[in-house]
């Protein structure tokens, strides 16, 4: 199957333009303020607020955010990861073998509850199937499922139990594979493996590749697999990552003002590119014109029919109105660029015929 063919399933029948630049978000989204209050109540042992109440609240939040993504006009939605606190912590709570000691710094005043692996990891309770099924039932648009990759689950934990991080990664890859099979059975067709840790230890790209092979094993070809890698020196992992068994590479370049763009033009980019076109670390909404220029940067790497646009990373740290503004302007910018391509005002290369 050519890189873009199983991408077309996400194009809406009423899409206005001939050209299709897919719009989506990486995953997380600012939670409604009331959900934070609800979490406090739920975590307060002296309060009668129970798991059922928490479920009802997160269901409501998922409804709100999914609707917000739809209103912004995104082609592919996410529920904003409203049930998840953090990308490692959420999964580590569901995997047997992890323990928690407290929050650690990521940058500035942003922390995560970095867990410790204290014994062999095993599949515990379900991870994401209910979350996906709930969100998918809310909309007729496709819902993407971001799932933290095994290398990041290993690398962003304290390893107290395994001889090597590689062994831990492969054990976790088998668990991720098990979860993805369940998601696919539930109807999920767009799954994004988040591997931000790859950028921190680029020498381990072969380990990530082996882990992805285990994940992709026997996954139906209709399933569109994405890989999100953010904040790093991409020249240390590119073009090697093009050998990974994924359809799309989601990369963050807006925050660095596209200084690394030439990394991806030096060697032919053979996958689909999901490009960050708004900076999630700036609490101002970029103008449509500015985002259009960023989208055009992506067209220097791949043609429009292999380009997805999204914010650089998760939006969860931004004020909610800013997050919404970024999505709304991004969608408008994408639609305008599509129209300009249709009118021949932007010259781009079309995808050459697949050799497959």
């Amino acid at each position, binding site marked *: 199957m050519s890189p873009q063919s199983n991408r077309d399933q996400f194009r809406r029948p009423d899409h206005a333009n001939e050209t299709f630049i897919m719009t989506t978000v990486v995953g997380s989204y600012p939670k409604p303020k009331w959900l934070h209050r609800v979490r406090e109540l739920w975590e307060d042992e002296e309060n009668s607020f129970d798991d059922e109440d928490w479920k009802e609240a997160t269901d409501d939040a998922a409804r709100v955010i999914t609707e917000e993504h739809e209103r912004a006009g995104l082609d592919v939605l996410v529920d904003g990861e409203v049930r998840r606190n953090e990308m490692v912590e959420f999964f580590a709570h569901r995997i047997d073998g992890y323990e928690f*000691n*407290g*929050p*650690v*710094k*990521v*940058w*500035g*005043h*942003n*922390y995560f509850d*970095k867990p*410790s692996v204290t014994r062999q990891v095993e599949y515990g309770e379900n991870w994401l199937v209910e979350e996906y099924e709930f969100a998918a039932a809310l909309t007729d648009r496709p819902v993407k499922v971001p799932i933290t990759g095994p290398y990041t689950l290993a*690398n*962003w934990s*304290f*390893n*107290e139990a395994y001889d090597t991080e590689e062994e831990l990664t492969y054990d976790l890859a088998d668990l991720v594979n098990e979860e993805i099979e369940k998601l696919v059975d539930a109807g999920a067709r767009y799954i994004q493996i988040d591997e*931000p*840790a790859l*950028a*921190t*230890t*680029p020498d381990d790209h072969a380990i990530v590749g082996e882990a992805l092979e285990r994940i992709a094993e026997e996954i139906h070809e209709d399933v569109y697999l994405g890989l999100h890698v953010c*904040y*790093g*020196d991409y020249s240390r992992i590119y073009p090697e990552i093009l050998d990974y068994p994924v359809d799309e590479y989601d990369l963050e370049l807006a*925050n*660095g*003002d596209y200084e690394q763009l030439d990394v991806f033009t030096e060697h032919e980019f053979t996958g689909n590119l999901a490009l960050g076109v708004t900076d999630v*670390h*700036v*609490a101002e909404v970029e103008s449509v014109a500015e985002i259009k220029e960023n989208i055009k940067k992506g067209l220097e790497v791949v043609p429009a029919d292999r380009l997805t646009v999204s914010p650089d990373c998760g939006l969860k*740290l931004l004020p909610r109105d800013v997050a919404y503004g970024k999505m709304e302007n991004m969608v408008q910018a994408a639609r305008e660029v599509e129209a300009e391509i249709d009118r021949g005002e932007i010259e781009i290369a079309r995808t050459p015929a697949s050799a497959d």
Partner: protein
Amino acid sequence: MTELVATTPGLYPLPDWAKDTLSDLKGHQKHDLIGGDEDEETTAAYTEVREELVEDQTGAGLDRVVEGQARWDDMLAHPLAVHENVETRGIVRYYDNNNFYRDPVVTGDLTESGDVARELEAVADLRSPDDPNAEESEDAAPLQAVLPGPYSLTDLASDEHYGDEGEFLDAITEFLAGEVALFPDHETLFLLEPSLVEEPPGDGVDEHASEAIDRVASATDAEVVVHTYWGALEEKVHAHLLDADVDAIGYDFVNEVDDNLYNITEYGTKDSIALGLLDGQNTLVESPETVAERIEWIDERVPSQEFETTYLTTNTELFYLPENKYKEKLETLGAVVAPREVTA
């Protein structure tokens, strides 16, 4: 017999209460981070944090007290991040960690700011609050200053002013030497130089880097330890570093044992040594017995040299750890030196 000194390379995690408090006071985005002009409420929170971090070390029985660098939002880049002639721009990865700092872009002349000196003075004030001029108690562990080494700070920064790599390193060197000259009395200065391992200097630059370290070290009468981590120095870099007039070089024996031992036995080292023996980036807490065995093990493999002082430390900064494990690591450090002091 070597004097065993339990210490740390600083950069501690914030206490959990302060994570929330300072997050609420300052915000989450890059323009909310420390700029050197924080308001009274934020300053008060940091004063309380500083007091707690000093107590942690005193309670654990460490031989040196560091300020803890809780204000260093940008980790080792901090001294530049608060400078008036430096703009902080996009967030960039802090070495190969899941940590980030604001890219400090130097846009004008670098002159000493006194920011780190004020932090160290605040520690002295904490320890003799009633009379700022009073001598500290004789029982108080001596103060240890912590700074990025000139090569690492240059490596972490961007230059839009000096234009030449060599000139930029010289400017950073003069800047750090100027900062050190403003420091209150301190027993030891730890210069953290992870970039010497992570981004080793090439021919010519290696010599220049050692000269730069020498110049910063000459700004203080204190014992100077150049601490390296995340592996071992390349042989030539190590050989050049030995030319710097410092008292000790620090070696990371968590991440790399063989190559560090090779460097020490092949080229020798300074009269004193710092051993990074506790893992600053893992929650598995080493027992004092295990650490003592490791010291002995290294000692047996360096038979040609008896060290004046052996600084026992974590290999890296400690801010990577959750609060409870950070404290347990300090306890281990203190426990390793405690029995030796009793029997000495």
